[in-house]
């Protein structure tokens, strides 16, 4: 591969050089490690004055629940939040990238807020360069000077602007609720209830989603993250009192011995009080 050395410095993005080797290894019987997926239900809804994002809180590795209460909604800017679905590591890496890029952009352009479309465009361009190898999907919700926006960016780099959207393994269940009950110009409370209902539908009907519903409301001049808006799964309540009462174990006999202690050494240190 001597002829590739000259171009090494110019290589950007992902190097796909190992793909052939990896395919060969898999064909020879190598079992690659499993990625931690978030197997999720996330959804977003635009209402009259803003956007509501919602997510469940379960992380899975294969068929095992790894984390019961994880965060899937991330703040990128005061006016932009994202909800992510897919491989957890990729999501965390991309959120770091998004946060630093958007903050730098805001400082460089010397404005108060970053338009939502800025994040959407940079993110979709980034994903496209990696050819879908960064395995995560984002719902981007935010309010800027042009009003509330909700976008979806897929792992290969395509993007869509929608009034309501769902992603993740529970997206079918959540989309059913949105398709039947979404209407334009809802109030904030209606929007929050709708998103909570949609995520609940995902939690109840999809095995990859579970535990709680987290919400995030983004309005023109404020945003609010509500963790545990609805708790769907939880530990059961103990019905009976299981504490052991005093006197349960019968006492046969009692012996009291005094332990004699000898003073061996005495040290006095003055404490500085100032």
């Amino acid at each position, binding site marked *: 591969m001597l002829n590739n050395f000259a171009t090494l410095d110019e290589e950007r993005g992902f190097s796909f050089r190992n793909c052939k080797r990896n395919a060969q290894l898999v064909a020879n019987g190598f079992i690659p490690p499993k990625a931690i997926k978030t197997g999720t239900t996330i959804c977003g809804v635009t209402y009259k004055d803003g956007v509501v994002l919602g997510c469940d809180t379960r992380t899975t590795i294969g068929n095992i629940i790894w984390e019961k209460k994880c965060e899937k909604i991330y703040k990128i800017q005061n006016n932009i939040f994202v909800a992510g679905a897919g491989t957890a590591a990729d999501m965390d890496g991309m959120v770091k990238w998004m946060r630093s890029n958007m903050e730098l952009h805001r400082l460089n352009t010397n404005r108060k807020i970053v338009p939502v*479309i800025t994040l959407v465009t940079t993110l979709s361009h980034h994903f496209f360069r990696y050819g879908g190898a960064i395995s995560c999907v984002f719902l981007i919700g935010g309010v800027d000077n042009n009003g509330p926006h909700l976008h979806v960016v897929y792992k290969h780099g395509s*993007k*869509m*602007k*929608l*009034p309501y959207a769902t992603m993740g393994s529970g997206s*079918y*269940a959540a*989309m*059913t*609720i949105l*398709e*039947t009950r979404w209407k*334009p110009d809802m109030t904030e409370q209606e929007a929050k209830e709708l998103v909570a209902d949609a995520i609940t*539908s*995902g939690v*109840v*009907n999809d095995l990859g989603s579970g535990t709680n519903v987290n919400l995030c409301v983004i309005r023109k001049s404020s945003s609010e993250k509500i963790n545990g808006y609805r708790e769907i799964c939880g530990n059961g309540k103990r019905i009976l009192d299981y504490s052991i009462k005093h006197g349960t174990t019968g006492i046969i006999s009692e012996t009291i011995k005094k332990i004699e202690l000898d003073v061996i050494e005495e040290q006095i240190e003055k404490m500085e009080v100032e």
Partner: protein
Amino acid sequence: MMSNNGVNFAPFWHNGPAPGSFYNFPQNNIKSNSAIDEYGFQRNGGPITTGTSIVGVKYDKGVIIAGDKLVSYGNLARYHNVDRVFKINENIILGMSGDYADFQFIKQYIDEIILSDFSADDRIVLKPKDLYTWLTRVLYNRRSRFNPLWLDMVVGGMQGEEPFLGHINIRGRSYTNDVISTGYGTHLALPLLREYSEKGPLNEETAQQLIQKSMEVLFYRDCRGYPKYSQANINANGVTVSDHEVKQNWDLALSIKGY
């Protein structure tokens, strides 16, 4: 390495059968993907002309089963006016999804059963659970011979005074429930149906509205969906099979600008 309490056994042989797994004898060429095996016998290789989802809801006094009026030929929406829900007799309604040819094959046998039931002239009419168990046995048997009938059937009706609703799938797994859905309906319609049915028994009007909403969502979100559907409603008064259209609302298309 797997720990056998610290003892490692060397394998007794290489390139031979492994306990618990299927062993391909070296001289047999089993990898061939041909539809016809060496004895000239053809197996079901997959569905060709297909019907998509069926939705069934049990209400306090009866059952409604609905399915759209499309039979697809792969990606082509080939036959637009096909009923996929049927009245079998005064007690039974049936919805089919899956391969339409396999359904036509088994429908002949069902018709024969109904005819011989009528000819017996003993004032005993076939009940839904009878057809349900019969279908389970047939589909399970076919699956066990590696030649399935590619069908997902929903059987509904009046089992005496009580409404009955059951589902039999391609492998002969059957179950009964208050709400049933097949195909994409399991992902799209079932969450909605469960939300309402778990609150308590439904009345006919709510069941009707639920079916309408489900068919609407299925048309919006299933690529093989269709806006016209037929439904069969069975209760103590008898069976009605009727045609309906999905109420499409595309208003939100005007508000989507940009991407």
